[in-house]
């Protein structure tokens, strides 16, 4: 019996190892130097029993099955910090760490709070457990109409993929409304899917639920296919990453841009609308899925620099070394679990760093961030007066 078990265990490691080659550049795992840079840069590496480097070592020793009994991999927030520093360019985040979470999920080793977010995503098409019928309710109260494709019944120039948090989270809805106002002011011909839109599924994918991701992607693909538009834009870097890099693998191919890229292109039209403003010192937080995952660092800064009176100061960790807010890869749905493990929040670290810049405003460009950072400003000493705002909110305010 013991022999059978150990053969089965060894088979797991081999199977797991081979499955890594299916990810783009997956073969590079063979070249791991065991330098441990990945485990060192990982914001939660010190709390993980299996940070990436050690996982590879155990895999090489053929005993990785022990990982299945361990839940510390759920500390991974898919922030791409490890992938960014790997000298051999191994796709650690999209490959190794995501595959590991998939195996944990299949083995039933999944924190309860993550489970409910996945069930909500499956049932309602959003991870917050909100009514799909109310997906466009954020737009009520605006003094202009936000066209919903199904009822507008006409082609549009840009299809705005709003996303879960931007649609439903009361704080993020403010950012969403700011973008709507901006599009309206710029005279952009746009439309949204409303109740036909589903979660982009990217964070569910990175939390190990590949099947759910595919299901959501297929639903969105179907909705995209019903309408005519030239490109997709979104305020959500996670949706952007999914539609740009993952959907095409499922045959869903559309041109997509993050709002920072889209607006940077329209910057000359925006500038005349921005009024003289008081001097204001801000620091910008690079979201993982805009920055490290997709190399967009300049567009957000171009927009900020256009606002009169704004002075940008960089935090010590900026651009490719930016610190994660803690929301990626399922982190949005693991706050309690991660707190139990580490008694620490990544958003607190980031806000502490923002405090040292003496900026008035911590500027963001991702819907995960305002609620996370605002929570931290309530507890981090010295951050009591710090304001968290999306670039969009600053732009609209500057328009007076």
């Amino acid at each position, binding site marked *: 019996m013991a022999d059978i078990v150990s053969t089965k265990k060894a088979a797991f490691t081999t199977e797991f190892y081979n499955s890594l080659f299916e990810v783009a550049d997956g073969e590079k795992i063979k070249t791991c130097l065991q330098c441990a840079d990945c485990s060192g840069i990982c914001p939660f590496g010190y709390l993980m029993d299996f940070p990436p480097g050690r996982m590879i070592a155990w895999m090489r020793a053929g005993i990785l099955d022990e990982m299945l009994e361990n839940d510390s991999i759920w500390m991974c927030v898919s922030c791409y910090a490890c992938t960014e520093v790997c000298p051999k360019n191994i796709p650690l985040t999209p490959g190794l760490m995501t595959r590991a979470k*998939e195996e944990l*999920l*299949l083995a*039933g080793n*999944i924190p*309860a709070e993550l*489970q409910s977010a*996945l*069930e909500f995503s*499956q*049932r*309602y098409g959003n991870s917050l*457990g*909100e*009514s799909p*019928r109310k997906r466009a309710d954020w737009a009520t109260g605006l003094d202009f109409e936000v066209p919903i494709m199904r009822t507008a019944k006409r082609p549009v120039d840009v299809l705005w993929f709003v996303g879960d948090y931007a649609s439903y989270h009361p704080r993020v809805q403010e950012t969403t409304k700011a973008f709507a106002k901006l599009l309206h002011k710029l005279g952009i011909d746009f439309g949204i899917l409303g109740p036909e839109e589903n979660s982009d599924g990217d964070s569910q994918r990175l939390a*190990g*639920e*590949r*099947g*759910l991701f*595919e*299901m959501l992607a297929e639903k969105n693909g179907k909705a995209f296919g019903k309408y005519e538009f030239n490109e997709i834009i979104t305020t959500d870097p996670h949706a952007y990453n999914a539609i740009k890099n993952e959907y095409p693998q499922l045959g869903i191919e559309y041109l997509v841009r993050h709002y920072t890229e889209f607006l940077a292109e329209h910057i000359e039209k925006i500038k005349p609308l921005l009024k003289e403003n008081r001097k204001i010192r801000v620091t910008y937080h690079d979201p993982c899925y805009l920055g490290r995952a997709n190399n967009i660092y300049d567009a957000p800064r171009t927009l900020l620099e256009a606002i009169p009176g704004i002075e940008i100061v960089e935090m010590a960790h900026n651009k490719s070394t930016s610190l994660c807010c803690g929301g990626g890869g399922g982190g949005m749905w693991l706050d309690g679990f991660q707190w139990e493990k580490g008694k620490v929040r990544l958003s607190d670290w980031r806000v502490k760093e923002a405090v040292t810049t003496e900026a008035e405003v911590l500027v963001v460009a991702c819907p995960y961030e305002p609620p996370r950072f605002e929570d931290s400003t309530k507890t981090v000493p010295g951050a009591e007066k710090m304001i968290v705002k999306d670039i969009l909110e600053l732009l609209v305010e500057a328009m007076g």
Partner: protein
Amino acid sequence: MTNIVAIVKMVPDLVEELEINDNGTGLARDWLRLIINEFDNHAIEQAILLKERDGGEVTVIAPEAEGVEDMLFTTAAKGADRMIKLTSDFAEDTNNHALARAFAETAKAFQPDLILTGVQANDDLDGPVGPLVAEYLGMPYVGYISGVMIEDGKAIVRKEYPGGLIGEMEVVLPAVLGIQAGEEPPRYVAISKVRQMMKTTEIDEQEIPELDPSGGARINRMYLPEAAGRAEMITGGEEEIAAKLVEIFKEVGAL
């Protein structure tokens, strides 16, 4: 080897606001979403846990409804051996008496040792399903169960009482149990496993030729809670309030 049957149903999902139909006798179905009854989901989990612990077979029976197939394939992915979808003329006014008769008739064929079902559901207008099924099958029923052990043809069950009390009791099998909570919360199964089940397993359809709703309540009117100013605040000293209360009780014939 315990032969377990779980009887479950889909109920209105409260994520959407409920609306009353034009007749004023039931819920408007246009936007109504359905979801597995939460307590039934615990009954399924308990059935799977028993199977994993002691062996046995799990059969899940559910009446046809929107989303019921996805739910049944999910239970298959959790470990259920057989899934049965009851088909009939399930009009929206089908009551629990009719459902319980259909469940009892279908379950009987499997000669179950144990029938598990949720202790209650949000659409139980004429009493919960469990005791009715037990009555039609002539089996004992115990409700509010949060733990089950099978031993020598008996079930040792943990029954919850108000005030945090737990009673442990023996039930002779076969029996029907109304599950308040499974010993573990309902597990998550990856969508890939559910999709695999859709390809490799089948749901058995069983036709219920005629539904018998007799014994259930007839709904005259269904309506949303109405805000009204019917409350009267009684003020004054203790003696005064007591005297006023006695007067009111007499007035309405309660004294």
